[in-house]
């Protein structure tokens, strides 16, 4: 033992150091693919999605690969796609929102009733609906952030409240598509169709795509996005590190409420009518969560990308349409979708494992 040895002095003189460099194995295509996977995790659900398309294409032939069928998928997932984007935001903060579907339905009802019951012009009714959505989001956010209630409970309660309000307020009355078309076509604006080389798109689909891209950018490339991840990852640590947890959570829930409002507007565009008993109110939450989880976002928060959630929604959409087109009977369709959900995520896990 040499206690008086001034061993620390050895490191006093800084030698010219380099960052450690190790032998770089596994380059080439495979290596590049690895790297892509690590920088862009949404690639995994994308692969699953493409694989699903290929399989259904082989089974169903040209019927499935027709522009009609392919754009049909987009139209069929537009509502779930928008809700999944909203849900993804909440889940990234380690929350969960059971009220998304119900809020969307209520917002569509508000847009409709405000126009038809109170005679407000539709161009005003839409922002009013969106404002309502945002306000509900704010209440959820406040209960989660300030009162510190578990998001599951807050949004479970809100789900029931919103659904009940929705039925009570609308008196269960559907506003018919014909009436909307005649008197307030702006409510159906997002249903506007246009053609791109035989494929039919609606503005609702465009809105969904834009929304996903914008959110992907914001989450990746702005400070707010980083804070969302940090808060979801480890709220304590984020707070200690200087993130305003409350502000971040409030903004997420409010934005989500707003997006749900958009989803309500998309619903009017898609169905033409305004119906308080739309199923989205009841199962929209599970559908959105499913898309998010298939898309590789962790329910424990802080990990995953919104593009993944979008691909997740598409995966389910492709399965559903494909099985329906193949003529599977409904219960068999549910059964197979159950199997496929598990299979999709198994493949996802497997890809991640072999490329770890």
């Amino acid at each position, binding site marked *: 033992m040499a206690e008086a040895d001034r061993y620390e002095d050895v490191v006093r003189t800084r030698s010219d150091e380099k960052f450690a460099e190790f032998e770089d194995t596994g380059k080439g295509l495979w290596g590049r693919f690895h790297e892509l996977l690590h920088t862009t995790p949404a690639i995994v659900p994308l692969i699953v999605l493409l694989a699903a398309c290929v399989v259904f294409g082989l089974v169903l032939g040209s*019927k499935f690969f*027709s522009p*009609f*069928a392919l754009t*049909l998928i987009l*139209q*069929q997932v537009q*509502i779930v796609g928008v809700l999944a984007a909203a849900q993804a935001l909440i889940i990234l903060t380690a929350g969960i929102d059971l009220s998304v579907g119900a809020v969307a339905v209520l917002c569509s009802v508000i847009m409709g009733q405000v126009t038809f019951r109170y005679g407000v012009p539709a161009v005003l009714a839409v922002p009013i609906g969106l404002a309502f959505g945002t306000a509900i989001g704010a209440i959820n956010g406040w209960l989660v952030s300030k009162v510190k209630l578990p998001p599951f409970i807050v949004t479970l309660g809100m789900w029931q409240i919103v*659904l*009940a309000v929705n*039925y009570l307020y609308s*008196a*269960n*009355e*559907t506003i*018919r*598509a*014909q009436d909307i078309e005649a008197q307030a076509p702006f409510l159906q604006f997002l249903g506007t169709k246009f053609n791109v080389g035989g494929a039919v798109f609606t503005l609702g689909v465009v809105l969904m795509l834009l929304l996903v891209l914008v959110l992907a950018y914001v989450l990746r490339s702005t400070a707010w996005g980083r804070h969302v991840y940090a808060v979801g990852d480890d709220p304590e640590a984020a707070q200690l590190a200087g993130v305003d947890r409350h502000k971040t959570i409030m903004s997420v829930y409010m934005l989500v409420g707003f997006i749900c409002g958009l989803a309500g507007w998309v619903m009017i565009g*898609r*169905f*033409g*009518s305004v*119906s*308080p*008993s*739309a*199923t*989205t*109110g*009841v*199962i929209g939450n599970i559908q959105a969560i499913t898309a998010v989880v298939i898309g590789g976002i962790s329910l424990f928060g802080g990990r995953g990308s919104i593009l993944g959630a979008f691909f997740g929604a598409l995966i389910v959409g492709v399965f*559903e*349409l494909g099985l*329906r*087109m193949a*003529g599977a*009977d*409904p*219960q068999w369709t549910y059964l197979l979708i159950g199997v496929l959900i598990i299979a999709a995520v198994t493949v996802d896990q497997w890809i991640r494992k072999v490329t770890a």
Partner: protein
Amino acid sequence: QDGGSACLITKTDTNPFFVKMREGAAAKAEELGMTLNSYAGKVDGDNESQVAAIETCIANGADGILITASSTSAIVPSVQQARDAGILVIALDTPLDPIDAADMTFATDNFLAGELIGQWAAAKLGDAAADARVAFLDLDVSQPTVGVLRDQGFMQGFGIDLADPNKWGDEDDSRIVGHDVTQGNEEGGRKAMENLLATDPMINVVYTINEPAAAGAYEALKAIGRENDVLIVSVDGGCPGVQNIADGVIGATSQQYPLLMASKGIEAIAAFAKDGSKPEATEGKNFFDTGVKLVTDQPVEGVESISVEEGTNLCWG
């Protein structure tokens, strides 16, 4: 197969009613050499899945669609889209709103179904109907149309003022103990009955949305020993339901004929695929009425009914 292709879209497929409907359609399609694809909503009132199903049928190039609409008006634009694509659309069981949104309707009148059991219950009670204590076991808080039609039909038949006929729960007749929802199964029926009994143990008439709910209500009554002094009425006329009349569980039920609707529908599509002909409505009505009959072993004056034996011969489940 060259007899053309058809789609059957039901409200759900967890209800024996629709299972039978599908069996009827499948048998007929088989017989006529047609392809049949079946679709269903996920829960009662599920319009979205039905829209997606219609879109799929269009993409698949079907000749005709049979649909029991979950939301009679919200489905109309999609139906229009299908008809524009040259597809014959027939509404089964539930007329669309407006009724001519479909090429033809093969239906039961759900309001009438309710009215029959209402009349029966009133007649059965006689003078006691004036101070009856009535419980309503409905389908769901979202008040899907079948549920509202049957509930309001019952009130009409029983002599209760409907207030708004498009919803239940807004009536102020003091004979109403309350409404509760059952999801149309035994589990919901039992709980709803218990809840209403806890409010008023003297209930003596129970309207139920369908026979499983009625069976659940019966269990609740049995648990407190009142199964013999309460009248339970219901709708559907499935075989277990008819058997329950024989066993004294249900007093009377309105029977419908889903197999008939389905097979008629398939025949119509086959004809349409062959030569473009469309089906005709029943004389004097704007739809093809497949009929409703009251089944009971305690017939009453002034309300036409059939016996349990006849009901058993016609039942579908």
